[in-house]
């Protein structure tokens, strides 16, 4: 069942001359882990803003085409109502925390919705637990590392229990260890809590292995849309400079000269190691 569906979606920012998103038609299924990627300035962030209504309600500008999220028409639905269905986590962890303690921050959305206190406390506990930061509940944001701050932001979204979580390059300011923890939390949300996840990410070497679906954008258009193995091994992806994992590149270069062949294009070092081992032991 489709949870997000766009058709010919085109959006131009108020003073811009060119559309930032140009004729995008995609479908995200319920429960999917989708990775959205493409070079800087390709329109990924703009598309994320469409999913939760920041576009067109906050940014104004010119939005054309169809855009349905969890069965709601985004153009007709206010942002605060969409917030119940779609959560958006931003790139810079620092600028999305407002309160002076972690638990108060996690509660922010629920307070805005007017949730009764005892219920709110339960939701906050659940969100802190799920994102593995219960021990930080009384800390102030500036006492936390970037990775911890980002997990607070994620907890703030979890607390609101949306069906879809969109994360816009959540790990780009983090070190590998911090990034890994974010991916683990997101994966658990997807696998155990059946939340639909849309992850915008450059570092496919870290993210590709979790994805069911990869969408590649360039200059506002979707140019590839499909299963990770197909998308990442396509010539087009390499040409526009998508960060294809090195193991996949290695496989491609060996396959080009006819030295390796498989239907399961390797995306991680374990997969290619097993493949090579198999071939060499034959």
């Amino acid at each position, binding site marked *: 069942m489709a949870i997000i569906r766009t058709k010919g979606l085109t959006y131009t920012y108020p003073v811009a001359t060119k559309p930032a998103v140009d004729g995008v038609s995609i479908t995200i299924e319920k429960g999917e882990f989708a990775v959205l990627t493409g070079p800087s300035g390709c329109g990924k962030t703009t598309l994320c*803003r469409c999913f*939760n209504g*920041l576009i067109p*309600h*906050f940014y104004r500008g010119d939005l054309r085409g169809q855009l349905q999220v969890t069965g709601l028409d985004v153009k007709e639905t206010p*942002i*605060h*109502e969409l*917030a*119940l269905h779609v*959560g*958006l986590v*931003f790139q*810079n962890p*620092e*600028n*999305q*925390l*407002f*309160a*002076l*303690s972690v*638990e*108060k921050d996690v*509660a*922010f*959305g*629920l*307070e*805005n*919705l*007017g*949730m*009764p*206190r005892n219920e*709110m*406390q339960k939701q*906050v506990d659940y969100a802190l637990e799920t994102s593995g930061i219960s021990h930080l509940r*009384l800390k*102030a*944001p*500036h006492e936390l590392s970037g990775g911890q701050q980002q997990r607070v*932001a994620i907890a*703030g*979204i979890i607390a*609101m229990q949306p069906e879809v979580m969109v994360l816009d390059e959540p790990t780009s300011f983090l070190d590998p260890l911090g990034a890994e923890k974010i991916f683990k939390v997101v994966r658990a949300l997807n696998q155990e809590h059946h939340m639909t996840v849309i992850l915008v990410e450059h570092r496919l070497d870290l993210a590709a292995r979790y994805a069911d679906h990869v969408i590649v954008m360039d200059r506002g258009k979707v140019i590839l849309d499909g299963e990770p193995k197909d998308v990442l091994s396509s010539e087009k992806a390499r040409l526009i400079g998508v960060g294809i994992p090195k193991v996949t590149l290695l496989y491609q270069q060996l396959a080009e000269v006819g030295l390796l062949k498989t239907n399961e294009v390797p995306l991680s070092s374990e997969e290619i190691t097993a493949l090579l081992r198999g071939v060499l032991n034959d």
Partner: protein
Amino acid sequence: MSFFDGLKFRRVDSAVHLMDPRVKFFYVLAIFVIAILFHELIPLIILFLVQIPLVILARVKREWLRSLRGAAFLATVIFGTNLLFRFIYGGYSLIPSDVEHASAMTLRFLVLVESFSIFFLTTSPDHLGLALEQSHIPYEFCFAFTTAVRFVPVLAEEAQTIMDAQKARGLELEKGNFLKRIRNYIPILIPLIISAIRRSLELAEAMESRAWGAIQKRTNLYVLGLKATDYSMILISSLILVIGVYIRFSISIPSFST
């Protein structure tokens, strides 16, 4: 800097920290009124001393001493000017009561610093925001307050980075005459302002994304309620107020110098 450090909130688990900020504010007000009512040394000494148990109870002695030390410079100035005025008005001579008066004025200032320092050291900005909210101040204002406090350390760090970046490009802040020195700060102020604008836009986006303004009557994770300690604090503050006013208007106060 050390003076402000002496006002910065420390998370300590004490009865004073747990008190309702509104109650503590009432206490600060009571001390303030009484300190203004008296200009004699003895009552001000008493007023200074009665607050010390509270400092000990709140376990913020070190920070409190630091705030007093930070106020030392201003206290000296107050003492000096008072003495100077008395000297000029007294026909260029000083009598012991002039010194006593100057000391009293200085002590009055220290009493005020003392009570403010107790308030800020033991009240988390979060609680303060909450107190504002529950005092029926519009939520937007309270939100602006807590967010401003939240971003103070962030902006301080950012200013430091910008300063480093420009110094690394040969900017010398201390160079040149007065006007030139002011101009030297332009390369620091512009990036700082631009980043603050960008930050506020991102914050607005994040707020919208978390259902800001969904309903008129929002709820709150924390609620302030008055406890036994709060009532005793109200009682103590009221007593200070009543006794102070009574003494002021019906008992003549002895002095050291007459």
